[in-house]
């Protein structure tokens, strides 16, 4: 996958700008606040209909505007081009089109223009709560498995309905339709089993890629990743086991006013030399795992989608030591289009990144002509 050109209108600080990208390495440089990351955000927004920084479109519109517009020209590995356009007219009206066809749901674009981003916000992936890792894997699996995305949406809806029943009971007490909650739990058990199966299957594959990527970055330590459900789904038929677990936990759920068991509480945990990374890892150890996860993400997407993803590397050299940063860039160069932001070009040269040659495009974010 390549992005060949980008137009931003009223997006963050840009009034109206267009730019072309090189098919290999693109260096976006400029001072802090010049708008480097904004370009990455725009690319991400086109491919996934939302930014990696915020879900609020109002935050993305230029000061004083309610909406914004982005246009991108993507090209797949066969050279077939696709025009993607994202137009936000107001907080409630967002239109995404691919080749002038308006999409009816987000699901239609997820996985079509694969990207891997590594930004300072991604630190949460190893440092943050289990929720962050669940979201990460949900996004990853949704891209390669459309059925998974649909199951997730169904599960979320059932959960919302069920929690609303529990909350009403917590406030009102009294009347509570046991048949209705049993119905919701039957429905939930079915989709829980599907989610569990998809997660187990895909994560076996992902783990292989992760351990391989980590081994390339670091040979001293050993990384393990575990996926654990709070419903034991080992031997036997998963749907039945989930149904049983949901029946058994109803009393507790009623007491707590929320749904305590199910895939929405699944845990994805990283262990470094058998110790929980989140609790015991040093800054440096966290970063290496994060980079390995991102590498594995790229390879995972590529193996399923048969399309090399675009890499968006925000402030990579600030994140990681020089030797490993260069190793990453070199390993991606050639097969992938990559975007690297940097405040100082001379610094990159000093680090040994060759800024010469036609495979590399340098864009000065501070000097992009505003022609609005």
């Amino acid at each position: 996958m390549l992005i060949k050109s980008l137009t931003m209108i009223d997006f963050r600080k840009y009034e109206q700008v267009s730019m072309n990208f090189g098919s290999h390495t693109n260096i976006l440089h400029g001072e802090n606040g010049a708008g480097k990351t904004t370009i990455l955000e725009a690319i991400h927004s086109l491919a996934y209909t939302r930014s990696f920084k915020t879900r609020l479109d109002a935050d993305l519109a230029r000061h004083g505007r309610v909406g914004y517009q982005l246009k991108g020209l993507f090209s797949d590995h066969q050279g077939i081009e696709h025009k993607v356009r994202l137009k936000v007219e107001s907080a409630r009206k967002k239109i995404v089109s691919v080749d002038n066809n308006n999409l009816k749901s987000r699901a239609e674009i997820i996985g079509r223009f694969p990207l891997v981003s590594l930004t300072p916000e991604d630190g949460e992936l190893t440092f943050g709560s289990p929720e962050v890792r669940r979201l990460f894997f949900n996004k990853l699996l949704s891209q390669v498995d459309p059925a998974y995305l649909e199951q997730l949406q169904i599960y979320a809806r059932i959960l919302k309905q069920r929690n609303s029943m529990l909350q009403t009971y917590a406030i009102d007490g009294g009347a509570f339709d046991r048949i209705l909650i049993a119905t919701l739990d039957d429905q939930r058990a079915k989709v829980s089993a599907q989610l569990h199966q998809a997660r187990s299957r895909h994560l076996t594959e992902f783990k292989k890629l992760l351990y391989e990527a980590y081994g390339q970055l670091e040979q001293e330590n050993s990384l393990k990743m575990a996926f654990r459900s709070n419903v034991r789904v080992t031997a036997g038929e998963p749907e039945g086991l989930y149904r049983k677990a949901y029946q058994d936990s109803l009393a507790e759920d009623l007491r707590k006013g929320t749904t305590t068991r199910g895939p929405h509480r699944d845990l994805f945990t990283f262990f470094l030399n058998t110790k929980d990374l989140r609790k015991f890892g040093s800054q440096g150890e966290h970063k290496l795992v994060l980079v390995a996860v991102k590498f594995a993400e790229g390879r995972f997407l590529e193996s399923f989608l048969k399309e090399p993803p675009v890499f968006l590397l925000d402030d990579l050299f600030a994140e990681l030591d020089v030797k490993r940063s260069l190793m990453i860039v070199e390993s991606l160069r050639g097969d992938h289009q990559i975007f690297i932001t940097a405040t100082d070009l001379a610094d990159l040269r000093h680090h040994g990144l060759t800024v010469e040659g036609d495979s590399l495009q340098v864009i000065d974010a501070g000097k992009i002509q505003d022609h609005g």
Partner: protein
Amino acid sequence: MKILPDSLDRITQQFSRFPGIGKKTAQRMAFQLLEWNREDVQLLGEVIIGSNDKLKHCSVCNLITEADPCPVCLDTRRDASILCVVEDSKDVLALEETSRFNGKYHILGGVLSPLEGIGPDQLHIKSLMARLDAIDEIIVAMNPSVEGETTSLYLAKLLQDRQIKITRLARGIPTGGDLEYIDGVTLGRALDDRHELK
């Protein structure tokens, strides 16, 4: 400065309360109305008020009707042993278009959605339970939404101890659809709901 008179504003606002009618369309409708002669406008008004006075829900099946019970409930040529349960009266129109169904209907008036405060008591489920004598089959024809599914499964649970066959509409490939172009999710459903060729 306000250019349009209040009366035009008011009618635009009323039109824009309809589903699928935005502000622009409502405005076009309002302007169109100015072109009409007085008799036509009067007729439109009377028809609207008249329908509001006359229309009610059938006390048996809850279909929208002028006469109670409704013509469908009274029609003796229809098979009274099969009941098709739908969300609202519009669904009956759609099913009637197929000319494939000759049973009777029961309109629930919505789907179960605790989030919106719609539980079994807010739907016409009790009146459905009161109709079950001499019913052999119930076809649950809900929309393929999560709540439609909840409602279908709920009814199946309520009816599981009765000697009544419960069926639901098949889901899958539309007629004239091309396998190649059908989204994976729909095709997957069609695979799940496949049936034996005999």
